[in-house]
């Protein structure tokens, strides 16, 4: 395993993001509740009011620790700067959406711009941020000097929006993406990837775990678009910076399926809150069931509920299990791809 010392330092620094994210989450729970930034947990019978946008703790932690790593870790600061800008821009778009309730089409359009820092810094510092060679499992790779840079913008927009769309239940996004980050971290360690991507995956995982502590069932904190979009953008940016493009697509299979079936049914970019036909319904005993509305999208949660209602906790555990499966396939993909240098 290449440069074990550098990787160990990277993981140790990233470990610090867990308590920081935990403390920031606790702080924003208090602050947001005090300032009336709240949402209603519609999947509970008593419909409790929960502080919203608390997940902002995650992008703050990610940017903070990327800055610390740039100063302490001694690695090139250009990829870290690109990463921070992507996460920060996506968080900004999410925060604006949380406060102003933008129309559904604006999120994918605005998040297209979030990949620009990777593209611009990549063009300004060739070879430091990304390489235009796509490494393919089993079959080698090919150079894409024109298509690859253009794909960066689409990739960040797709990952941020698809992660945004699969957070209907307590802890589903935070738990799912922490599994993805953890799996890709292990995979990157096994193939001997660079310490910067090791650090960024570890930092993403630990930050999410800190937030998950309060977001897990029954949630005491909601993520909000500010967190969902920035975490999704982080996954997209890391796929490019860490050269784990194909493995990252595999790891987020549950998100891809959910978004694809949502869009194929609704046929436009829209917000969940604007849907007139809901995919699931809350039963009097507190369990969730398929709404059986043919106009409603066949979301991932709905497929798991067809013919048999379940508790929210059971559904979230199953979603995590699906993420564990897709992430295992992603790790095999990484091993089949080999050392992405």
């Amino acid at each position, binding site marked *: 395993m290449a440069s074990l010392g550098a990787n160990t330092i990277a993981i140790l620094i990233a470990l610090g993001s867990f308590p920081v994210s935990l403390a920031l989450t606790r702080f924003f729970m208090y602050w947001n509740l005090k300032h009336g930034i709240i949402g209603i947990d519609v999947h509970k019978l008593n419909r409790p009011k929960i502080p919203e946008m608390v997940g902002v703790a995650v992008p703050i932690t990610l940017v903070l620790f990327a800055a610390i790593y740039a100063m302490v870790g001694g690695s090139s600061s250009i990829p870290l700067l690109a990463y921070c800008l992507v996460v920060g821009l996506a968080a900004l778009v999410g925060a604006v959406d949380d406060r102003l309730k933008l129309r559904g089409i604006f999120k994918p359009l605005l998040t297209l711009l979030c990949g620009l820092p990777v593209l611009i810094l990549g063009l300004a510092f060739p070879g430091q941020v990304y390489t235009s060679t796509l490494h*393919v499992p089993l079959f080698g790779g090919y150079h894409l000097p024109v298509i690859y840079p253009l794909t960066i913008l689409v990739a960040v927009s797709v990952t941020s929006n698809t992660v945004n769309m699969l957070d209907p239940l307590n802890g589903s996004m935070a738990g799912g993406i922490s599994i993805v980050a953890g799996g890709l971290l292990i995979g990157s360690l096994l193939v001997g990837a660079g310490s910067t991507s090791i650090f960024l995956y570890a930092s993403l995982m630990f930050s999410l775990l800190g937030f998950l502590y309060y977001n897990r069932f029954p949630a005491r904190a909601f993520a909000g678009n500010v967190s969902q979009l920035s975490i999704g953008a982080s996954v997209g940016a890391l796929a490019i910076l860490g050269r784990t493009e194909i493995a990252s697509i595999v790891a987020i299979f549950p998100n891809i399926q959910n978004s694809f079936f949502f869009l*194929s049914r609704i046929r436009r970019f829209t917000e969940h809150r604007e849907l007139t036909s809901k995919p699931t319904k809350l039963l009097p005993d507190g369990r969730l069931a398929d709404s059986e509305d043919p106009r409603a999208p066949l979301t991932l949660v709905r497929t798991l*509920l*067809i013919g048999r209602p379940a508790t929210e906790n059971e559904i979230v555990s199953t979603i995590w299990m699906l993420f564990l499966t*897709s992430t295992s*396939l992603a790790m095999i993909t990484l091993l089949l791809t080999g050392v992405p240098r």
Partner: protein
Amino acid sequence: MNKRAVGYELVVFVTQWGLMLFGFGVLTKIIAPLNLVSTSMSLGLYLDAAVKGLIALVLSVTWLFIWDRQVRLYFRRRGK
């Protein structure tokens, strides 16, 4: 929890994973080495990239179509 639904999801994921690796193999070994548009032409490099990009797009849409059919086959049939 509907265990059969979970099983179907796993089958869908593994199938799509296999198809994805196959598709990237086709792109790497067959499509990428082709010279579809002469690169000596003005903008030839970009036209060649655009045509290959279109082929990749068609493969991606086919991949999503197969995903769609699988999920509809497993879940719609049970839902109706």
